């Protein structure tokens, strides 16, 4: 894989991301918006594959594209009728949001293009699953065992909270 092939693949993924991001926010049928969000997340997983982070891409595919989008589609099916179309967004919000997005994005992109990033001079470490798993569960220097445990407690608390909130009050 040379640089040219990578740039073509990158162009494909980024085109998918940008087009389907627009479809996510401008589609007036809510189920189509959810499916467009799914395409955006899958293309982002493709970008992670291009960066050699296979584990992150797998997490993106299973948790984001597989979990969160399915959750969103479930809630769409529970709360709205499928054939209903949204009314058009008010022109005031469209214009104000467009100004915010264009100016904010323009300033950010201008800064990105005019800033010289300095890369670290240290040699790269391998990005295989063994290195990631060892560091994620290590308790030594640069170990992430404590945040890992805290996030598991947080997930448990969030699941219990979701059940309690959505439970029908008798």
């Amino acid at each position: 894989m040379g640089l040219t092939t990578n740039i073509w693949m990158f162009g494909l993924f980024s085109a998918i991301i940008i087009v389907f991001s627009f479809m996510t926010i401008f589609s007036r049928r809510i189920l189509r918006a959810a499916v467009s969000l799914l395409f955006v997340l899958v293309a982002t997983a493709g970008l992670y594959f291009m960066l050699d982070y296979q584990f992150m891409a797998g997490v993106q595919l299973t948790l984001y594209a597989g979990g969160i989008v399915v959750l969103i589609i479930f809630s769409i099916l529970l709360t709205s009728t499928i054939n209903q179309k949204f009314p058009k967004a008010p022109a005031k919000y469209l214009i104000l949001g467009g100004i915010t997005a264009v100016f904010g994005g323009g300033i950010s992109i201008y800064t990105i293009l005019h800033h010289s990033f300095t890369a670290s001079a240290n040699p790269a470490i391998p990005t295989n699953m063994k290195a990631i798993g060892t560091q994620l569960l290590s308790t030594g220097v640069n170990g992430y065992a404590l945040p890992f445990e805290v996030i598991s407690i947080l997930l448990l608390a969030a699941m219990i909270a979701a059940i309690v909130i959505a439970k029908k009050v008798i």
Partner: protein
Amino acid sequence: MNTLVPLSFFLIVSTAMFFIGIWGFIIRRNLITILMSVELILNSVNLNFVVFNRILFPDHFQGLFFSLFVVAIAAAEASVAIAIIINIYRRFSTIEVDSVNEMKY
């Protein structure tokens, strides 16, 4: 290492995704589409962390782990938000934000 696409390409894509998410956040009046815009924003931030980690500091894993934790927190946030949305729908029979303003004022 020279087969990686330049850093600024990735940053431009994630910037575009972020501001499209903000645009959607402003124009949409439905709770679920607002939640989808938030997911777009979170996804672009994740992409930024991973790209900085991989291209500028390939001798660390910090950005990768931060993105992993962001994904986990996004899952928790989505589940709680959808529980709240279902509860709101049960009480008001709608999830438009303009109709659910009883706590205003």
